[in-house]
């Protein structure tokens, strides 16, 4: 099998190398993720340099082009990933709403108006508001 170093292949390889250098220097301590990245990039690089591999695999399963053999699963995976992340964001929004609401209710203040004289009193305890309104002390 012959290596096909077209200008496009060289550009893509340079991009992979640049990304790898950037991540290796910038990521810091997470070595495990870097190892995964190197493995995935190595596979991708091989497919770029030897397109014949993808081509043969594609023909084997009845797909026209080698590139499509790589792209189809990639697109499916990306769509799924996008849906899952939307769902996660929706759930996170719901959680945040409950958090903000709980905080608001916990910190709620109230003032009971004393109708006859218009004297306002403040209290921090919401629990006794209902009681006061009920026994009519302030209304």
């Amino acid at each position, binding site marked *: 099998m012959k290596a096909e170093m077209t200008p496009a292949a060289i550009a893509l390889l340079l991009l992979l190398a640049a990304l790898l250098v950037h991540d290796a220097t910038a990521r810091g301590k997470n070595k495990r993720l870097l190892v995964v990245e190197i493995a995935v990039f190595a596979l991708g690089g091989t497919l770029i340099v030897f397109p014949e591999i993808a081509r043969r695999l594609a023909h084997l399963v009845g797909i026209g082009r080698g590139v499509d053999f790589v792209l189809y699963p990639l697109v499916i995976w990306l769509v799924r990933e996008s849906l899952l992340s939307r*769902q996660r964001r929706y759930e996170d929004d719901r959680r*945040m709403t409950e958090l903000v609401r709980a905080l*608001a209710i916990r*910190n*709620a203040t*109230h*003032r009971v*108006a004393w109708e006859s004289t218009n004297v306002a009193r*403040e209290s921090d305890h919401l629990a006794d508001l209902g009681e006061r309104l009920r026994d009519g002390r302030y209304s």
Partner: protein
Amino acid sequence: MKRLAILMPAFDEGERLTRTLAELAGVSKSCGISVSITVILVDDASDTPVDFALAAKTLHDVHLVFARHVLNLGQGAALETARRLALSLDPSFDAFVTMDADGQHAPADVLALADSIFQGADIALGDRFGGASNTPASRRLLLHLARAFERWTTGLRLSDAHNGLRGFSRRAMEQMRLRQNRMAHATEITHWVARHLSSRGTAPKLTVVEVPVSIRYTEASLAKGQRATGALAILADLVRAFFFGDQREAR
């Protein structure tokens, strides 16, 4: 004495809120001792926070419960916070009315809705086309489209689909939990109402009435209010909830 809770979400209303509260205080005087009014005000993280002391002073002899979201969540979320606050008080209120803070809604209409609830209705919906509202033509068109959408999706024939003035009885309020944080809560409420018009299982049938109200449109309220593109955002929110919302919760 009947007890009325007014649920009022507020976001960046400033002067308009103060005027609305002052009007409420004025109306409260006129209805004397027959109704005790409590405003449940929820500040949805306004850029200039609502001044609690000023609000309390403005309200005179109207009781005030005040809560503030630390992050802006939207009108639906603020309404839900107000609802839970209102229900957390014991004994609870006899009627609950939702009202906008920007001065669009007349306090007299709030009392009219409350009265329908006191008379035994579970849900009282404001109908701006029945009252003396100066609804602009563009808004009118949008509302009729919304109404058609509601009728198509729920089979519910309402005169005014998306009016912020709504009254609820205690049992209706206890059942109605809002999950739509932003403007789609209006559609959520209509759908909820439609589902409870007939008795389902053990849940009792709820009665609905429409009450004519006068909405006052001003330049400020129109500028801040819903735009036509808002309808698309609402649809997007509804679709999101349909696909990602917890189906067990939604029933």
